[in-house]
């Protein structure tokens, strides 16, 4: 029983990480049909912004975080949209997919070349203490990740449904052309989602790097899991991404214990295929309008 809870909570905590990366992913898809193959690297990079701030410029941790947040909003939000996404908007998703693959290589190789291939320790947000629940030893860190993830998404949801800008963003996501007719500044709304995504990946980086350690190749696996999470939950739904992430984390852990460690990726992948084939809108997603 203790094992079961251990696996469940650890799975949820890891799932929270996937969820954070997946949320931004679905946001970009909704507003601009961007499939970002560099999303994993987007989470990897801000951690190095923080490390550079601390080691090169001698900033205290909190200041380095603020600087990194601003820097990632500029580079991963604003510049990403203006320089890469905008020129390709009218050419379908595939050229942009290729461009983001290129971006992923650039970020990975850049970090490796300029900062090194090693893993680097990263200051934790909380002390590495354990909490014991029903016989299972859970790390405080994991619980904090889970809490902040859910908090961030709830806050985001409140923002989207409770504020004028948020509702305009939702309208943009639902149907850009109608939104434009209604006088919503669609361009600006899309830019906001990119900025939000940049802030989310920064938050994800802060939460997970103490556990992942800062390493150039972190994005590879994380990006893949974020994809899977987003699809399982519903590509066009933020809540779906959360559920997808959590489900994925838990499935992954149970697979490893009860089925096979060598094939631990298989069960989530098969689950993904089944979801796509029989419920393509995802666990929580809505059916996208079809044009006949």
């Amino acid at each position: 029983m203790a094992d079961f809870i251990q696996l469940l909570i650890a799975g949820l905590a890891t799932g929270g990480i996937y969820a954070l990366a997946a949320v931004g992913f679905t946001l970009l898809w909704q507003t601009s049909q961007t499939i970002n193959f560099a999303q994993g690297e987007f989470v990897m990079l801000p951690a190095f912004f923080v490390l550079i701030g601390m080691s090169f410029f001698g900033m205290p941790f909190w200041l380095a975080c603020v600087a990194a947040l601003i820097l990632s909003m500029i580079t991963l939000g604003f510049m990403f949209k203006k320089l890469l996404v905008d020129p390709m908007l009218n050419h379908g998703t595939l050229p942009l997919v290729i461009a983001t693959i290129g971006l992923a290589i650039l970020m990975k190789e850049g970090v490796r070349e300029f900062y090194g291939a090693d893993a680097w320790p990263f200051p934790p947000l909380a002390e590495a203490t354990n909490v014991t629940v029903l016989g299972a030893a859970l790390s405080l860190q994991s619980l904090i990740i889970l809490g902040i993830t859910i908090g961030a998404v709830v806050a985001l949801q409140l923002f989207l449904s409770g504020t004028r800008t948020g509702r305009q963003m939702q309208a943009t996501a639902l149907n850009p052309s109608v939104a434009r007719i209604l006088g919503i500044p669609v361009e600006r709304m899309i830019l906001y989602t990119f900025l939000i995504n940049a802030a989310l990946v920064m938050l994800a980086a802060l939460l997970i790097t103490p556990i992942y350690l800062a390493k150039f190749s972190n994005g590879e696996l994380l990006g893949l899991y974020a994809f899977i999470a987003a699809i399982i939950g519903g590509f066009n739904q933020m809540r779906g991404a959360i559920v997808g992430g959590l489900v994925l984390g838990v499935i992954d852990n149970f697979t490893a214990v009860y089925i096979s460690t060598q094939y631990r990726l298989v069960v989530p992948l098969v689950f993904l295929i089944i979801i796509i084939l029989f419920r393509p809108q995802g666990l929580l997603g809505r059916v996208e309008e079809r044009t006949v």
Partner: protein
Amino acid sequence: MKLLKSIASLSALALMAATPAVAQVKLAYIGEISGQLAVSGGNFRDGVVLAVEEINAKGGIAGQRINLTLYDTQTNPGVARAQTQKALDDNPYAVLGPVLSGNVKVTMPLFIQAEMPHFIGGEAADLVTLGDKYLFRTSFGQQIGMPKIANYIRDEIKAKSIALIWVNNDFGKTGRDNLLKELASRNIRLAADVSTEAGQVDFAADIVKLKAANADAVFVYSNEEECARIMREAKRQGLKGPFVGDTTLLSQKTIELAADAAEGVQGHVGLTSDAPLKEVEEYKARFQKRFNYVSDHNGIKGYTGVYAIKYVTEKKLGGKFDRKALAEAMRGLTITPKDEPGILIETTWDQNGEIDRISFLAEVVGGKQKITKILPKIGK
């Protein structure tokens, strides 16, 4: 920090190229500079670069400056073969690398054909049995390392059963297979056999399995970061060891990343920059000064490989750059730090290019690797 280093090394290379007046000898490094195992390939490279810079600063090999070219295999066999071909086309005197066993295998026919001595980093057992007379290891094959570990588990830990957790890649899988063979011949039962992924983060499930196995000891065989994460999760779930491992588990990097979770870990270390030898300690300091990070065993492999070439060329070949003679002279050769300080630890190569060296038993005490016993060379 690394940026400055990169610029420095680029300009160093430019400088090398800009001084054609001096006679030059070409060396090539072929390794995994990018891709999944870039840490190993990168360390090996920096070891090589450090040795080359030191040697050049003192006038080169037999008066000839070393012109080093780097070839990145991207950890991909097809690319490795292409890059090796490229390196061989350039007709170097000798080659350092590849580091990964798979990349050693794919390039082997080319080295045989070119009769090119190459100093590899790969530790897979079978590499020295595949008919490449020009292959020389820079560290033990696993068929030498693993019996030492198995003995240690039987004699020192006195474990009757063992739970094994390993990383499912070129490095982890070959090590695991060799260890299993040795354990079987010593009647040590395998209680759990847990495969993990490179880059894995959440080890909760894996540790649950290890706990359930209830073995006398846990053997951890993975890359440094994963070792650290495994130890942290083991501590969290209260998995009692003893934890036994190899070079990576006991490396300073793992200890640094795992913090107190690595305390008490013990095992056998084939090659380590923490060895209590004057030459190794000095090397470690020089490496850290030059590259701003701590060398792992792959750095030593690259470093000693270059010095072996220098020693043999100067002392055994009388300064003649004859690569067949180099390979010939390497076989059955012993180099001691007294002959050549750059070799760091006394090393013997046998007829197949396999290596014999002292190795160490170690334990993590107070956040530091402590060598508890030095195991003699097998040939003694």
